């Protein structure tokens, strides 16, 4: 993978943007500036950014209910994302989708999805399209550890394997499916162990190490381009915050020690990457501060953009139902 400075700095910027975007969204939700359900991606930034760093802009992904990180990593416009959370016409879905349904087909982001595992077959269809287009394109589907309980996970693994589709299964194992620890719903938590039964590659990677995720993804992309079919990529990460909030965040029920461990500088995805880049001399402390300030400014602008955007006109209720 290209380790050129701008690419690495952009990865760091995106990770910071993802975290700040969701921390801000939480405040906006508490303040009732935005509506509905919110699933923060805080703590898992290295997965989305690492995977998307190894994809081409024309490659396609599907996301989950926890989709803000995937959008930003794939290059979505935070103004239109924010406007969508606000339910305004300038949002990606003109306010029809909200947090759980942001999509930007123009950048190959085929949609967040409120159905656990629901995006996997759709990504598989995008991988079939890529195979038929025969231009070296690939597709990736993000899904959680909990999604491995669904039949669509198994069916999509099998079909993509038999058809040798250029598809990357990105399991974001953040240790929980809503309130349930992964150990309580799976007897074996090494999710990559599913791969051999399908004759595909199964790889486990530290999901908080963005470069490791990027490199593992790059290898999966290579396999896919060679015609060796899909890869099951198990990214081990941690959900730093709550599963979901409506009007208020739910109480934290996990042990403080555990949370502290994952907050540690050598564990937290962003802090680690900052330290790697500074150690390598790619960035200086000042650069990081500059990035953080720029992110803050961009987010303020996004909120302003969203707030200025009008609500959809109820008269347009039936618009977008059917294509001509």
């Amino acid at each position, binding site marked *: 993978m290209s380790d050129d400075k701008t690419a690495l700095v952009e990865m760091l910027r995106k990770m910071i943007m993802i975290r700040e975007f969701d921390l801000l969204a939480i405040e906006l939700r508490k303040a009732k500036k935005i509506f*509905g*359900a919110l699933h923060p991606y805080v703590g898992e930034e290295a997965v989305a950014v690492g995977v998307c760093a190894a994809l081409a802009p024309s490659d396609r992904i599907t996301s989950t209910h926890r989709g803000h990180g995937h959008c930003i990593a794939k290059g979505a416009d935070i103004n239109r994302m924010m406007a969508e959370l606000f339910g305004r016409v300038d949002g990606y879905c003109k306010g029809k989708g909200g947090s759980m349904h942001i999509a930007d087909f123009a950048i190959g982001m085929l949609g967040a999805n409120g*159905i656990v*595992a629901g995006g996997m077959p759709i990504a598989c269809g995008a991988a079939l399209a890529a195979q038929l287009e025969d231009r070296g394109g690939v597709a990736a589907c993000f899904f959680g550890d*909990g*999604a491995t309980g*669904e039949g669509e996970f198994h069916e999509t693994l099998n079909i993509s394997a038999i058809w040798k589709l250029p598809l990357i299964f990105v399991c974001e194992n953040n240790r929980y499916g809503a309130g349930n620890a992964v150990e309580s719903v799976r007897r074996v938590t090494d999710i990559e162990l599913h791969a051999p039964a399908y004759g595909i590659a199964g790889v486990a990677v530290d999901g908080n190490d963005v470069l490791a995720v990027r490199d593992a993804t790059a290898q999966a992309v290579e396999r896919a381009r060679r015609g060796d079919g899909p890869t099951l990529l198990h990214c081990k990460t941690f959900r730093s915050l709550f599963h979901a909030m409506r009007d208020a965040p739910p109480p934290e029920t996990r042990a403080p020690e555990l949370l502290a461990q994952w907050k540690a500088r050598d564990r937290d995805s962003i802090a680690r990457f900052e330290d790697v880049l500074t150690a390598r001399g790619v960035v200086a402390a000042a650069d990081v501060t500059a990035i953080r300030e720029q992110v803050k400014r961009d987010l303020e602008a996004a909120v302003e953009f969203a707030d200025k955007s009008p609500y959809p006109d*109820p008269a347009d209720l039936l618009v977008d*139902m059917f294509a001509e």
Partner: protein
Amino acid sequence: MREITVTQALEEAMIEEMERDERVITMATTRAPALENKFGDRRVRFTPISEAAFTGIGLGAAGSGFRPVVHWGMVTFSFVAMDQIVNQASKIRYMFGGQADFPVTYRCTTGGGAQIAAQHSQSPYSMFMHLAGLKVVLPSTPADAKGLLKSSIRDNNPVIFFECSRLAGVTGPVPDGDHVVPIGVADIKRAGRDVTVVGLAYYVREALAVADSLAKEGISVEVLDPRTLVPMDAAAIRASVRRTGRLVIVDEAPATCSAASEIAALVTEDAETFRALEAPVQRVCAAPVPVPFSPPLEQAALPDRARIEAAIRRVLTCR
């Protein structure tokens, strides 16, 4: 009488029925601490996110002597399990010649109004009603919720028990003791002379509110709550329409092939009721769109008091 919420009423029903019959067990993807502490994790199970599997598990356990109560969470998630509902649960007893009973209750929440958009705001009761072989329940008050859940759990057939999300926190009087409401019996929530309004779930309340305000104008609205959709209490609905001569049906599902369509058909195919009908039947339903996220759009998509009132005035004037 003491007032509790629908949620509390449903939990009471669960506790009472699990105490009453140890063959009652429960399954859901989310934990139920209150039940788990009381009845243990053998009878109160949380499952992986595998709706197709645990829907069939409920059916198989029912056919093996237990009385499972399976909670899908939102009805949205039942569609992952639709094979087990359509091809198995609704047909298994008849197809096998009635040699076994399948006392399983499937609970799920329904409805919009919470800005959680298309996938999480569905009210697809009619898709289950269409399947010969399932009983379908949709209460609108805490008392009916408790009484009908108890009846559903005691029923020896697969029952789909819908819980309207917007009613979860609504309080109402619930009798003490073993309060049971029979499946298949409609309830007239307000008697009236001029028009029959059949409301479902949340829209029973909205219809009652409209009836109040119209009463001030001397318009007498009868509000009927079917409470169960299968079996549908067609006799009660027809009798009411024969008295009033006019019918408005209110529900938050889109109109096409909905419970509202069925009620309209039940009324107009009955000769005596048809003769008594003085105005076209009106359906006040959701717009034919997936429920949108943005509040003004969502409000425009779902029925409201203004549209209920307008429909009532239409049937009262138009002949």
